[in-house]
């Protein structure tokens, strides 16, 4: 899946996260900001990277503003942001699990 435009999903409420995606033709750049970066930074980055890989996203800039979200919410918000950024309305549920 290709990110062709800027898009946002999620909120800055507690237990949620805000995901911003935008096109980047050279690399896949993942930036994670979190109040719990020391404890959970690696875990958040791992979930984000896995989610993007399942969606075949290998280019783009993805910025995460985490507010203590659980893994399931991270997956959902990243998927929503990428789908919005891809301009696609078609969902491949096999990639969402």
């Amino acid at each position, binding site marked *: 899946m290709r990110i062709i435009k800027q898009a946002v*999903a*999620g909120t800055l*409420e*507690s*237990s*949620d996260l805000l995901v911003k995606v935008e096109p980047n033709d050279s690399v896949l750049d993942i930036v994670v900001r979190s109040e719990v970066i020391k404890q959970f930074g690696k875990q958040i980055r791992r979930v984000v990277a896995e989610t993007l890989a399942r969606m075949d996203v290998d280019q783009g800039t993805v910025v995460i503003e985490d507010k203590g*979200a*659980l893994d*399931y*919410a991270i*997956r*959902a*918000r990243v*998927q*929503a942001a990428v*789908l*919005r950024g891809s301009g696609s309305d078609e*969902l491949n*549920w096999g990639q*969402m699990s």
Partner: protein
Amino acid sequence: MKSRRSMLFVPGDNPAMLSTAFVYKPDSVMFDLEDAVSPREKDSARLLVFHALALPAYRDIERVVRINRLDSEYGLKDLEAAVRGGADVVRLPKTDSAGEIQELESHVARLEKECGRPVGETRLIAAIESASGVVNAVTIATASPRMIAIALAGFDYLVSMQTRRSGGSEPELFYARASVLHAARMAGIDAFDVAYGDVNDDEGFLREVEIAKQLGFNGKSLIHPRQVDLLHRAYAPTQKELEYAKRVIAAAGYAQRNGQGVVSLDGKMIDPPVIKEAELVLGRVYAS
């Protein structure tokens, strides 16, 4: 038999509530993709609910997803997330006819096959929210073997009837409550009473719970976690009811062991309906 006293609404776009609603121990959680979610957040909420359905914390709680109507642009997408996510039950809002349940059932069966779930595993609840739905309650309740309950939703229903909530004994809801209950009992399924909107009015809520309980509703749809415990306490039998139910069961057992058709207790005949009621009372204790 599964006890369904409390069905707690959880907004589908709220991760904090999606991941904590289980702590209030409702009999069912209802992840809402309909009215609680704004149109521009439907896509994101659908994914949140899809993943929240897999949270281990909900393993012992019935997981219901309220989808949008199938004739909206969201309904089928919501249904796909619910069935593929493993929802136990799909709740269809604003159900006016049996045909809507049959259409829903055919889509559910197709999705179950596509994602490898056993066909028939996903159960259905119809919410009745209009005069048409109330009048058609019997055909709606019996529209599919997947149906496990019908729920009366008061806000839209009263608008369709050109009236509003009065408080007190609520005569404006009497016909709808009686119709929905009769339809549910005829179909052999559960019935949920309306949600109570003022979350700070415990007295009004409990007054309404007593009406629902006395009429025979299995429980209520709930819009706030604090209503769960209030409802469960109100539905629990009193010590006096409990003691009597135990004595009825004991007397019935004695009659059966001694080949007696009927037996009396405190001068009252203990017949099958009395025994059934005693079993229901004891069932509520074990559900608590």
